[in-house]
C-alpha cells in the first residue's frame, strides 16, 4: 500500500542542506500496522514530513508509491485528498479559525478533489460529533479555534478526531503518543484501531515508546538509525528495545 524505496532526503538548515534520510526502504501492506522506533536524530520526523511534502524537505533520491500512485509527484493537499494522513508531533494552533470550519473546509476540499459532492452543514456536524465522542472530546472544543489553548494531550486527541473525520486510507502518526497520560493513551490507541483498522487501510506509527503498541498491536516493528532501517522484526522487537535501549543498534 505504501512502498518507500531507497529514500534520500535533505533538510534545509541555517548551514545549508543536511542529509537526514540515507536510503530508507520500507513497505506497509494493506491491512497492516507498522511501527518505526529509533533514537533522537535518526530521521523519524523527517520521514513523516518528507512523506507529507513539507516545504524545506527535499527528496534527492528514491521513490514512494502510495496505492499505485507516485506520492512524491503530488502537492501536499493532493496527497491528503488521495487518502494520505499525517498526524503531527506538534499540531499547529490556528487562532481565529474554529475546528469545525477548518475540518469542514478540509473534508469538502478533499471531496472536491475526488469529484464528490460536499457535505452539508448538518451531515458534517453529525460526523464530527460521532468522531469527537469516539475520542472522548467535548463538542465544545470543536467549536473553539484550532488547537488554541489546548493542552499537549488535547492537541493529540484533536489530531485523531481530525483523522476520524477525514477518514484516510493510510496514516503516518508522528509521536502521537508523546504528551499523553495513561488514560488518554488508551483512548487514542482505541481511536486509532477504530478508525484505521481495515483490510484496505494501513498505519505507520512513529514512536519512542513501546506503550502505545500495547493498544495498537503492530504487525512489524522497524528500527531507524542514521536515516536507514537497520532492523525489522515483530512486536517483540519493541519490547526488546524498551529493555535494552538503542545502544546495540546504533553500534551496528
Amino acid at each position, binding site marked *: 500500500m505504501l512502498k518507500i524505496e531507497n529514500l534520500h532526503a535533505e533538510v534545509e538548515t541555517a548551514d545549508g542542506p543536511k542529509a537526514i534520510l540515507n536510503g530508507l526502504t520500507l513497505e506497509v501492506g494493506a491491512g497492516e500496522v507498522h511501527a518505526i522506533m529509533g533514537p533522537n536524530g535518526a530521521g523519524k520526523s523527517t520521514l513523516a514530513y518528507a512523506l507529507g511534502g513539507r516545504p524545506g524537505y527535499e527528496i534527492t533520491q528514491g521513490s514512494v508509491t502510495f496505492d499505485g500512485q507516485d506520492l512524491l509527484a503530488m502537492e501536499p*493537499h493532493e496527497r491528503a485528498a488521495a487518502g494520505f*494522513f499525517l498526524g503531527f508531533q506538534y499540531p499547529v494552533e*490556528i487562532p481565529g479559525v474554529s475546528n469545525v470550519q477548518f475540518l469542514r*473546509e478540509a473534508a469538502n476540499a478533499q471531496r472536491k478533489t475526488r469529484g464528490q459532492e460536499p457535505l452539508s452543514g448538518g451531515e458534517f456536524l453529525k460526523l464530527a460529533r460521532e468522531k469527537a465522542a469516539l475520542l472522548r472530546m467535548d463538542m465544545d472544543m470543536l467549536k473553539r479555534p484550532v488547537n488554541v489553548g489546548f493542552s499537549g494531550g488535547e492537541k493529540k486527541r484533536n489530531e485523531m478526531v481530525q483523522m476520524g473525520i477525514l477518514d484516510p486510507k493510510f496514516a503516518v502518526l508522528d509521536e502521537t503518543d508523546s504528551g499523553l497520560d495513561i488514560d488518554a493513551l488508551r483512548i487514542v490507541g482505541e481511536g486509532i484501531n477504530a478508525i484505521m483498522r481495515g483490510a484496505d487501510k494501513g498505519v505507520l506509527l512513529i514512536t519512542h515508546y513501546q506503550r502505545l503498541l500495547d493498544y495498537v498491536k503492530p504487525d512489524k516493528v522497524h528500527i531507524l538509525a542514521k536515516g536507514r532501517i537497520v532492523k525489522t522484526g515483530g512486536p517483540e522487537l519493541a519490547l526488546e528495545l524498551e529493555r535494552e535501549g538503542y545502544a546495540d543498534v546504533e553500534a551496528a
Partner: protein
Amino acid sequence: MSEAATLLPTTRDEDWRYAEPAALATLAAPDLAAWDEMVVAPGESLTRECVLDAGHSGVRRLRLTLGAGAKAAIFALASADSYTRLEVEVTLGDGAHFEFGGVTIGGGEHVREFVTRCIHAAPNATSNQVVRAVHWGRATGNFLGRIEVARDAQKTDAGQNFRAILLEKGASANTKPELEIFADDVKCAHGAAIGALDRTAGFYMAARGLPPEIVRKLQVQAFIADAFENAEPEMGEALLDRALGVLEGAAL
C-alpha cells in the same frame, strides 16, 4: 501656484508622509476641510461601520466627541482599488471608551491608510485600537496612530496594536505610533509587527487537504479577525466576509 494647490497636503507633511503622492495632487481642497462630526452624549454609545471600498474611495474624516462615560466604536475596512485614507479624531471625556478596529487589504499599486488621533482630554478614559494590514502586488498599508494625554487625564489607559502581512515581495506596510503624554499616571501600550504568512501553519492546513487558495484565505481570516473581535458578531462577520472577498479576486 494657486492658493487652492498650496492647501493640498504633500508627503512632506508628517501626517501624510506615507500617502500616495500622485493621488494627493488630485484631491480637492474642499474635501479635506470636510469632517463628519459626531457627538456622543454622556453615558450614550455609538457604533459605526466605515467601509472604504470601490464605491467609497478617497479621503474620509470622522470627528467624534465623547461625553463622560460615553462609548464609541468604529470598525473600518479600507479595500478600494485606489488611494484610500480614513482619519478619525476622537476626544474622550471622563471615563469614556473608544474602540477602533480596522483592516486595510488589497493589491495593485495603491496606498490604503488609517490615521487616528485619540485625545484623552479628561481622566479615566480608555481607548483600544487594533489594525491589521494584508497587502500584495505593490500595495501599501499604513497606520498612523497618535495618542494625546492631557495634563489632568490621569488613569488613562490607551492601547494600539498594528500587524501587517505581506503576501508578495513588493508590497509594504508602515506604522507610526505617536504618544504625547502630559499626565503621569497613565498606561499607553503600542505594538507593531510586519511579516509573512506562517509556513508551518500553511503546511499543517495543506496536510489536511486544503488547496493553497483556501489555506491563504483561512490564514488571512485568522490574522484579520482580531480587528473585528470586539464588534457585534453580525457586523464583524460581514466586515470579515467583505475583506476576504477582496482576497478571493486576487491574482496571487
